[in-house]
């Protein structure tokens, strides 16, 4: 290694604590990025693999509305149309011993060209052999499942078991295990059954979930199928259908990525802080090197190379840590995706080289970028100037207005981007990062002003030592400024995220409280309620009225629409908060005129509002529906269309009810009514009943569960911040060793010096906290009004709990005080003579 680099890296190795903390900061920043990427991509890949396995070789799918595709259509296409490359599918979810499994009901004779694992014994990849083939077709409930699931359920081949579908139990028999070398993970939670069994279990006699189609590339084939399809039935590309489902989670995943970038941004400030300190502490050395003939460019390269080396080592460890962390986060991410979007079972962690590369490059890039500013500064030193601290401070102070102006320019750019960028999430995130950067650049000038003012007050009440403590902050602004900015950015992230999550939680709490009006909610997992049973429940003593709902997906070539069908009960639709229309007129047109309501996210995403029309695919063909109002909803960020049962019945002829809300008569006890419901449902359908309170609690639990990953990322960011504070304080106080030695030499006791250092650290923490509050609130505003809106279409009021602000102040002051303890001890216990000599 050239001696020049040895001189530079030798410095780092001589300060292992600072080196270690800087590396740890980079390492965690990179780890969070890699982990989020692994968790996101593993979930997405697991879902795609599962969809691809289930779709098999199908290029297209014929789908219809909630009732499914009429079986006759399949027969017609196959017999009259002579189409051979089509296969009927009935699919749904069942429960076995509390475990949710997906059922794939197939016609093995039609399967040949679609899915190898459902094929009779004709090749090596077959699943059914000759003896089980007959059983599969003839025995009701004959099932194939993966050996992993069979082992998990403790089932052996030939063993009987029970599956539960829509609250009803059905007998099943394990006749064999599925094998698919390429997609064994995707088959992990799939039961393959004959289509007749699936129809029976899902109450779809005469109907299919879809028809899989293998079409040649030419458009003529598609056109000939389209000509045969009845209204309300669509031929969709399998790939685009899968994509439209996965796209639902895109905003969620983008937000997680943004959170991880926030951790890296904080990490970048900390790296900048570390490298700046390393440069400042070596301004003497740099001065000597410049005097010996090191050019500006060489000085610049030296500092950047040092930053890059730090970045490479930190990023390498970060990538390794990220893989481990990714495995831990995967569970949380897949849980949130299950709660919010679609079912996904992730058995394998997908560590793509790209994820690792992205994390590595982000870490090295961020470090390089962070090292760039101090490198430019170091290369600009004139050799003799680099030796004078006072010149450095003067120069810093001179630069303050320009730095603040640059900050204001960045903030102004953000404020220009926001209104001009429409609904772009990436532009919103860019604006947020620009605002953070802009505000951060204004912090040093604020710190200078505040600490100068505070010095006077401190001097009046605490004497010379207090004045020295406070003035030290502005007198050493070249060093304290960077530390305060890094700490303030980190703490502001905690304020921003806390206020956003809390505002969201309050909004959801109000919304749930307002929406859930019934006393008891009844449903069955993954299916519809028995209409007879619903009628019997309505007749029970103690039941005043019932409301009903049904959730369906309507698919069209341009995407999927979620429709919620409601049947009002006595207390009416008070639970639906209308945002842009009068209640009376809205509900009248909703009930009588066939108008629909759209949720706020739906209106935002599809750019519709009251008075617009929307087209839905019905069995009578596409129909236009008037939008009577927009309503508040936080239940699905893809948006929902609300339709009355009367309107729904008019077009779909579907009487299925997914859940009911039971309103009790005055004086009736919910427990006794639930007991009666349980009795009358016995042997008919196993009901899932929840009281109003239970459902509220469960809803909030799910809400909290979706924010667990945010919390984890948040605490990781705080961890990075605390590491940074410790590093900054350590560097700051070490840098002032000579100054402290002089104070000791002129008579300051170790205790006084230690107290001064600790108090100064605390003051720095307090200033950081004070700067973090407005920045944090600004961040919360952007998160709520821009990022949440653009990601999910939700709007909510910002709610600022004073406790968050106090916590942020306590966090920054406390962390800085803690971080100041060791440097204080070092300063107090250092031998003055040695410290002065070392300088």
């Amino acid at each position, binding site marked *: 290694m*050239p*001696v*020049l680099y*040895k*001189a*530079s*890296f*030798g*410095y780092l*190795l*001589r300060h292992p604590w600072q080196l270690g903390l800087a590396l740890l900061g980079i390492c965690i920043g990179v780890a969070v990025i890699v982990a989020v990427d692994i968790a996101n991509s593993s979930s997405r890949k697991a879902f795609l693999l599962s969809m691809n396995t289930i779709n098999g070789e199908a290029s297209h799918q014929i789908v219809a509305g909630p009732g499914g595709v009429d079986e006759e259509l399949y027969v017609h296409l196959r017999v009259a149309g002579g189409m051979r490359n089509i296969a009927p599918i009935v699919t749904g979810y069942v429960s076995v011993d509390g475990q949710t499994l997906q059922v794939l009901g197939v016609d093995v004779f039609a399967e040949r060209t679609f899915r190898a694992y459902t094929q009779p014994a004709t090749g090596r990849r077959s699943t059914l052999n000759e003896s089980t083939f007959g059983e599969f077709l003839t025995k009701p409930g004959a099932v194939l499942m993966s050996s992993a699931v069979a082992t998990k359920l403790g089932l052996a081949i030939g063993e009987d078991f029970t599956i539960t579908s829509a609250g009803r139990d059905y007998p099943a028999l394990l006749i064999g295990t599925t094998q698919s070398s390429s997609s064994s993970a995707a088959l992990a939670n799939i039961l393959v059954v004959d289509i007749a069994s699936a129809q029976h279990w899902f109450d779809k006699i005469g109907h299919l979930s879809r028809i899989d189609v293998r079409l040649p590339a030419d458009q003529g084939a598609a056109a000939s199928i389209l000509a045969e399809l009845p209204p309300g039935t669509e031929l969709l590309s399998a790939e685009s259908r899968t994509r439209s489902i996965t796209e639902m989670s895109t905003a969620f995943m983008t937000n997680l990525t943004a959170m991880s970038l926030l951790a890296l941004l904080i990490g970048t400030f900390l790296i900048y802080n570390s490298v700046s300190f390393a440069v400042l502490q070596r301004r*003497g*050395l740099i*001065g*000597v*090197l*410049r*005097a*010996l*003939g*090191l*050019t*500006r*460019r060489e000085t610049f390269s030296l500092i950047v190379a040092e930053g890059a080396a730090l970045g490479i080592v930190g990023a390498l460890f970060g990538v390794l840590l990220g893989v481990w962390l990714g495995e831990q986060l995967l569970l949380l991410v897949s849980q949130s995706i299950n709660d919010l979007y679609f079912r996904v079972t992730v058995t394998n962690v997908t560590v793509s080289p790209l994820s690792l590369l992205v994390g590595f490059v982000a870490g090295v890039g961020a470090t390089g970028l962070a090292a760039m500013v101090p490198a430019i500064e170091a290369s600009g030193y*004139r*050799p*003799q100037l680099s030796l004078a601290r006072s010149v450095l401070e003067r120069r810093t102070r001179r630069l303050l207005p320009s730095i603040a102006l640059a900050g204001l320019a960045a903030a102004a750019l953000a404020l220009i981007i926001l209104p001009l960028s429409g609904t772009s999430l990436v532009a919103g995130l860019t604006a947020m990062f620009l605002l953070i950067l802009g505000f951060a650049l204004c912090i040093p000038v604020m710190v200078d002003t505040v600490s100068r003012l505070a010095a006077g007050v401190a001097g009046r009440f605490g004497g010379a030592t207090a004045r020295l403590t406070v003035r030290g902050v502005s007198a050493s602004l070249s060093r304290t400024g960077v530390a305060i900015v890094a700490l303030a950015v980190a703490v502001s992230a905690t304020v921003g995220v806390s206020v956003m999550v809390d505002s969201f939680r309050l909004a959801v709490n109000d919304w749930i409280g307002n929406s859930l009006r019934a006393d008891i909610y009844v449903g069955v997992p993954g299916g519809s309620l028995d209409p007879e049973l619903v009628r019997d429940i309505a007749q029970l003593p103690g039941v005043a009225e019932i409301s009903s709902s049904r959730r369906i997906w309507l698919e069209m070539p341009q995407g999927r629409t979620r429709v919620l069908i409601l049947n009002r009960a006595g207390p009416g639709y008070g639970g639906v908060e209308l945002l842009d229309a009068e209640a009376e007129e809205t509900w009248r047109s909703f009930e009588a005129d066939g108008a629909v309501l759209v949720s706020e996210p739906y209106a935002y995403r599809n750019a519709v509002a009251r008075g617009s029309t929307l087209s839905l695919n019905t069995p009578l063909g596409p129909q236009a529906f008037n939008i009577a109002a927009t309503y508040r909803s936080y239940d699905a960020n893809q948006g929902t269309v609300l339709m009355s049962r009367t309107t729904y019945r008019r077009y779909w002829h579907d009487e299925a009810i997914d859940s009911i809300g039971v309103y009790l008569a005055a004086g009736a006890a919910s427990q006794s009514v639930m007991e009666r419901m349980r009795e009358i449902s016995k042997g008919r359908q196993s009901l899932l009943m929840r009281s109003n309170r239970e459902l509220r609690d469960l809803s909030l639990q799910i809400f909290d569960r979706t924010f667990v990953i945010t919390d984890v990322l948040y605490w990781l960011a705080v961890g990075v911040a605390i590491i940074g504070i410790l590093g900054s304080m350590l560097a700051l106080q070490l840098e002032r060793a000579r100054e402290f030695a002089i104070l000791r030499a002129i008579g300051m006791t170790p205790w006084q010096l230690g107290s001064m250092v600790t108090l100064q650290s605390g003051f720095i923490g307090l200033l950081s906290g004070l700067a973090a509050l407005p920045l944090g609130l600004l961040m919360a505003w952007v998160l709520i009004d821009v990022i949440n809106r653009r990601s999910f279409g939700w709007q909510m009021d910002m709610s600022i709990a004073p406790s968050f602000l106090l916590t942020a102040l306590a966090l920054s002051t406390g962390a800085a005080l803690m971080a100041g303890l060791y440097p204080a001890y070092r300063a107090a216990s250092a031998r003055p003579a040695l410290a002065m000599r*070392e300088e």
Partner: protein
Amino acid sequence: MVNSNVQIRLSHLSRSFQEGAQQHVVLQDLSANFYEGETVALRGRSGSGKSTLLNVISGIDAPDSGRIEIAGLDITAMSERDRTLFRRLHIGFVYQAFNLVPTLTVADNIRLVLQLNKVEDAEGSRRIRELLTAVGLADRRHSYPDVLSGGEQQRVAIARALAHRPRIVLADEPTGNLDDDTADDVLSLLGDLVRQEGGTMIVATHSAKVAARSDRVLELQNGQLIADSRHG
């Protein structure tokens, strides 16, 4: 050996610094010549402009006006980069505070200059051995500066300043941090080595002893040359 060739020609140099609202004039219309092989002592009170003069000669600082020619080259017309490269190649510095790189061994401190000047490793090692033997520190080549005495550190600094055989050696109070005996040793060594190498040396000093060892003494006051006396 002093000869009549002018190594450094200073013409009407002026330099001032702004401090707040005040303008401090450090060099005022200063002109002087320095000849090949001579050792010149710069004397004067603190603030008289000695260090600033060394800085502008080395190209570390630039004068506000005036011209500096070294071996016929006008370094005031050079860019900052060219001045740096010129300094790297032709000038050796010895400081009062030694300014050794604390994270490098004695040998590496010298090697640093050789590597900056792209001297081959083998040649560099030979030169380091030669210089360390000359300054009497051959056995301390692997030591770090912080375990050396002040005199030893200054001897390393001298070896470093001479490593690349510069035309000019600039020394700013080289004995200011040393006791009298050590200062004598260091001065003899510096003087002998510069003479051996045939370079020109300018020493900024308060010391009469240092001045006495020089070929010529220039007296500075308020940035102006007030006396130029030649010994012997």
